């Protein structure tokens, strides 16, 4: 088979892939299944990430997951109720005042309760890792560019708000460096606190500069729109929101007839979609080199959705396999359909085209062979 020409996949394909696996992971506390999902994510990330700065997010999210796991574990040991046997060790129990009745501190720690806490933490960690994988494989800003025109401006605002955090981290680094250059100590709590004001000021100033630059470059320009069109758009949006709200209420309230729920939801979604389409006409934006949605994208999203579907189905059909009963010490079973599904989800690592590397000016022989 000839090797595919390097190209970056549509960001939505990777995000769908990651979110589907995330759904699968959320259905299971089976450590073997979780380990397999993590392995699949790792293999795909390893083979399909580019060399751009945002493609280093995976490790960061893995670390975050480990922290979550550790916190869950420690919390269980300190505050958890003992379940089953055997008892691993016993911590001295501390009597808490009456207002804190119901909370135990210390006491016996059993193997099954530790195992359950570990599995629960691992599930969260794997879900975090999958978000990291999505960030690594596809730049979230590219994903934004594929939004419908009406949502574009809201999307930019969200992304600028989100990028505030990383730019804060950068600013903290710079200000701490600057403090060192001024001969002040850059360590300790006081060192961190005194940088807060300049860092916030700096980040705010940058946001203002960015806003000015975006405005100078035509962000938020409007095409000519009649006021009647504006009224229609607003009405469609309002009707859509009311419909969706009624539908959601129906879903949560079991006494509402299901027909009403379905009709309200359908009408709401249709009206909102119509509003979006009309609002999109107001903007004048066009897209430069829109990402393609071809076979590799269909395949990536497809296999992940199938894998998620099978896992969710298995969690209903065979609950004990995916969520082993708490209190029993046993090796996790590997339900065969789930194994097959997850192997399928690893396929994008091998059948999609390799990513385009940004740092190399010339395509290498390896990549074009």
């Amino acid at each position, binding site marked *: 088979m000839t090797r595919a020409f390097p190209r970056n996949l549509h960001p939505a394909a990777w995000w769908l892939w990651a979110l589907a696996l995330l759904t699968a992971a959320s259905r299971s506390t089976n450590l073997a299944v979780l380990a397999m999902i993590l392995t699949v994510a790792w293999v795909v990330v390893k083979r399909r990430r580019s060399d*751009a*700065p*945002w493609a280093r997010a995976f490790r960061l999210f893995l670390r975050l997951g480990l922290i979550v796991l550790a916190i869950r574990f420690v919390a269980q040991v300190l505050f958890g109720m003992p379940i089953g046997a055997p008892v691993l060790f016993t911590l001295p129990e501390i009597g808490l005042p009456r207002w804190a009745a119901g909370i135990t501190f210390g006491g016996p720690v059993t193997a099954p309760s530790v195992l359950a806490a570990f599995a629960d933490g691992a599930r969260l960690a794997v879900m975090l890792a999958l978000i990291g994988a999505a960030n690594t494989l596809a*730049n979230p*800003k*590219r994903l934004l*560019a594929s939004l419908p025109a009406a949502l574009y401006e809201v999307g930019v605002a969200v992304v600028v708000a989100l990028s505030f955090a990383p730019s804060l981290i950068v600013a903290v680094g*710079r*200000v701490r*460096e*600057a*403090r*060192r*250059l*001024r*001969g*002040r*100590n*850059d360590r300790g709590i006081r060192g961190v606190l005194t940088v807060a*004001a*300049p860092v916030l*000021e*700096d980040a705010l*100033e*940058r946001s*203002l*500069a*960015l*806003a*000015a*630059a*975006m*405005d*100078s*470059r*035509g*962000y*938020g*320009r409007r*095409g000519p729109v009649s006021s009647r069109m504006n009224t229609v758009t607003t009405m469609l949006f309002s009707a859509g929101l009311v419909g969706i709200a009624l539908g959601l209420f129906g879903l949560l309230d079991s006494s509402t007839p299901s027909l009403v729920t379905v009709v309200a939801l359908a009408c709401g979604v249709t009206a909102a979609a119509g509003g979006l389409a009309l609002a999109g006409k107001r*903007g*004048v*934006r*066009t*897209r*430069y*080199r*829109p990402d393609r949605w071809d076979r590799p994208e269909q395949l990536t999203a497809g296999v992940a959705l199938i894998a998620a579907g099978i896992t969710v189905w298995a969690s209903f059909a065979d609950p004990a396999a995916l969520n082993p009963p708490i209190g029993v010490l046993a090796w996790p079973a590997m339900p065969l359909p789930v194994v097959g599904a997850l192997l399928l989800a690893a396929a994008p690592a091998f059948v999609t085209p390799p990513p*385009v590397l*940004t*740092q190399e*000016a010339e395509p290498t022989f390896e990549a074009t062979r």
Partner: protein
Amino acid sequence: MIEFRDVTATYPDATRPTIKNVRLHVDEGELCLVVGRTGTGKTTLLRLINGLFPHFTGGVLSGQVTVCGRDTATSRPRDLADLVGVVGQDPRSHFVTDTVEDELAYTMESLGLAPDVMRRRVEETLDLLGLVELRRRPLDTLSGGQRQRVAIGAALTAHPRILVLDEPTSALDPPAAEDVLAALQRLVHDLAITVVISEHRLERVVHYADRVLYLPGDGSLRDGAPAEILKDTPVAPPVVELGRIAGWDPLPLSVRDARRRATALRDALTACPNVSQATKASVTPVTVELNDVRVAYGNRPVLNGVNLAFHAGEITALMGRNGAGKTTLLRTLVGLHRPLSGTVVIGGVGPRALSPSLLLQRIGLVPQDAADLLYAATIAEECAAADEDAHATQGTCAALLNEIAPDLSFTQAPRDLSEGQRLSVVLAIVMTAAPQVLLLDEPTRGLDYRAKERLASVLRRFARAGTTVIIATHDVELTADLASRMIVLADGDVVVDGHTADVAVSSPAFAPQIAKVLAPLPWLTVGDVAESLGVLP
């Protein structure tokens, strides 16, 4: 194209207007150069053109500014985006997207151009500014000069009728600046784009300009032909100053003009003893040393085993194109980067082993983003804090600042200063500790000629007192004026290390204007020529 009718612009909380009763008419296809001392309102004048003043900055605008018939009081910057392209001072804070290609296309996307038009223009712009190899690169990985070219490209793709540039070459090395300016001139000549550009390094731009807009600092504006206006302005490039000494009229604006007139001057100078070569430094002890230092960012080597020793009282200029490793070298010297191998030794120890307050007395760095070092509410507070940090007597910093920038008011907030003024404050702060080694990263960005002279005289005084001064710069005029030694870095290696006089004369890329005019004679600066001829500059 651009029409100012009795324009007065006052910032909020300002006691007097920055721009006062200005009338101006700029025709299509003109290249206007805005000149003036640091902080006289050049940026404000540029912001008026696309309505960033007052729509974004706040403040009061009286009078009327129209651009192609659109009034900026009613048209917001976004409504003028198809007419006016803007390139700001710090491109990094203006980027909206993540990669070069997307950034180039951004304005066109906002304007709603057809995809095939966008595709074609992006390709043209990539070629025009030499960005083809960088097209997929994330913007975070670009060097300062590359970023500046991308910012200009991003403004150009929308084919604006007017291009406004605020110090577009201040971060660029001489060849890159030449490229950018040549591209601008081509735009003016081929497409009749109107260009309004502010620049401190007049020697780079003045010969391209059709008109000079001079801001004396009292809010008024004088405009006219470059040779007319530059007759008596306090800011003037070296060739113009040479012309003033030699009494040429009209004044020469380019090296070519000056060289054709300079035959008699060269003859007169041949008879004089050369001043620039008379000063040879004697050997003094080594203050800072790099032994086989290697630094890499990820897999990319930035310094490949650099061996250098700097002596007390020596002023060294560190030159080389953007991304050659100059900044990394300086940052490694103060311990902000840990070398992969090799050692940095300052007075017997490595910089990373010293506590910040001890480090400051050994070695001080004025970084490129000088504003990072400022965080007090007023300049007076900054100075007091600097005296305290450095355990210097009260008022040391303030006295230094007075010497570098005498016209600064100490009650101003550092954040409200212009870039050049902030740099002056940071310089004073770092020098307060009187470090044995003083490092400056691009210290002349945003400084006018007078401010540069004052900076040079302060640095000379420090060097005479035994301080080692190392300046990373693209400014060949500053190097010629100040540095006795010149080091050129290329791709992480030291390629040239020698006396400034020898290096500058032997290579046109690093030769100051006077050397080009007077070659093969070895004079480098106007001051030296004036001294040889016995006239006052």
